[in-house]
């Protein structure tokens, strides 16, 4: 995904938005499309996508509707595995 985004991190000006809205803002900010690494065609989370807000997986809460605030750290990982 990094190769698609072109960077390892982005600062996205936003406050009190959903994770989904933040992702769209991040894509605009990067100037490159990458959301298909994380979302399916219905704009839901791809199986195995990991999104952490301040270290907590959004799947344990409100998913893409989880709200994020200014200063929050959001980690994005496309599906991965190993041993």
């Amino acid at each position: 995904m990094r190769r698609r985004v072109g960077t390892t991190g982005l600062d996205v000006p936003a406050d009190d938005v959903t994770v989904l809205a933040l992702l769209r803002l991040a894509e605009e900010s990067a100037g490159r499309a990458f959301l298909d690494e994380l979302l399916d065609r219905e704009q839901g989370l791809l199986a195995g996508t990991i999104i952490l807000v301040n270290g907590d997986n959004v799947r344990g809460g409100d998913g893409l509707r989880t709200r994020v605030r200014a200063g929050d750290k959001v980690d994005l990982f496309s599906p991965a595995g190993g041993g």
Partner: protein
Amino acid sequence: MNGWTGKIVKVDLGRGTQEDVPVSDAARRRYLGGRGLGVRLYADLCPVLTDPLAEENALLFMTGPLTGTLMTSGRTQVISRSPLTGTICDSSSGGSFGAALKGAGIDGLVVQGRAPKPVYLRIHEGGVEVRDAAAFWGLDTQQTQKGLQEEAGGKASVACIGPAGENRVPFAAIMNDKDRAAGRGGLGAVMGAKNLKAVAASGSRPVDIADPAGYKDLASRVDRAVDKNPVTGKSLQVLGTSVLVNIINAHGMYPTENFRRGVFNDAEGTSGEKIAETLLLRQSSCFKCPIGCGRTTRTKDKHGEGPEYETVWAFGANLGISDLAAIAEANYACNELGLDTITMGGTLGCAMELAEAGAWPGGPRWGEAGKLADWVTETAHRRGMGAELALGSKRLAAKYGRPELAMQVKGMEIPAYDPRGAQGMALSYATSNRGGCHMRAYLVAPEVLGHPVFLDRFSTAGKAELVALFQDVSAVVDSAVLCRFLQFAVGISTFAEMLRVVTGLDFGDEELMSVGRRVYTLERLFNNRAGFGRADDTLPPRFFNEEFQTGSSRHRRVRLEEMLDDYYAVRGWDRDGRPRPHTLAELGL
């Protein structure tokens, strides 16, 4: 016979004899091959308390009914009693050695006795020959493989030990196809104790397939499933297993400095992404494998395979080291000398904490990247500091009076996932039949990675059932002998279908799961009789008593007591972790 060849050969290196090992159709159905049949045969051949390094101990190289057929079917399972732990131990290796054994016409090789001087076994379609290995004894695993392949006209697959196995280091590995390793549990030392340097196999006997049309159709469907799956079809190909470094670190459970912390400040610098940028030459694959998780890499002066995720961690965060080239070169050294990287790194982490605590003043210090490869070399040769490191962490920590500083279960070092970050992994480690192992039940998949579903990693609810289920499925895959990474893309029903089209035997999901349960329970029975029980189904005190103060797994402790009794109940074992008579009867044990 479809799938199997029907032939297992037993070689006694002391007596100089060979014989066929009879296996009934019923036994093949109940144990399949690989790990399952290997553990069954071992238990039938050797008393439980057989000294792993004694000549009467048996060492088995096993294939399964699917070996040499579908994708990822080149693997081998090596089985014996571990000199590191004293438990029953199977160790899985990739590459193509298993397919070479099958091509030579055998389902498995059993080795007992001790040769009077170093030998190797040459296996081909004409049989098994015992040959003099004097010219190879003392050579590293790469030199040995090259030499034996040249002798075989470039056609053999070679499994061998290096100096570590020759010196009976209790975590010596058996290496094959350059850098594939049967690493965990020290079965390389068992091989060295037999004066057996190598096994070279070749042959082109095809595997008989029961339903060729069904096989072709299934192979295509599995190929598509693997390709479509984002883990097997993309992530592992592009970044290899070290893709996990940043992920596990972000979850605050990347064990740092002997599991004292869960976040490593320079995870990024030792990640799969960094390997791709700085060391990677190309990806590499095992026999018939489209996943291609292997990494062929180079540093300024050396090259080789890896490092994999576990090794990047073992020589990196676990030791406070962020020099990726030094980590890679220590990895290459382990492969050349034949040492398990997880135990090597786990022992070094323990040693560094012992030194810092003043318990072992002469021990190694955190972060000394420049000395890593030397420590590995010294360990393989049991000299200098390596003479101590060769004990493994449990014996080392006990020697220096601080047993609690060894991060091990049943004597085998815990791998690269801190269990305070995933309660299911805590139970998985504690109840693993071969000690600190992440592969018996890889609960990281649902608890962290979200495969096949996402589970709350801090909850203990339902984890007992899930650990038992994952252990059983893994035992099936290890007994059919395919790569566990297929489990990201296909489920138990597909494995049943694979067995049906290849062998002609119709396993329903239930029957196949009972094969896995039988294998797991047999291993447990063996361990019980070897003296292991509830007291050993635990973790080092650190995980119960210490909490991280930072990171997203902070303020957590392992809550094993909430899961262990449930796990025993699910398994049909008593409160001491012993299979109940009705459980044994149900499984025909």
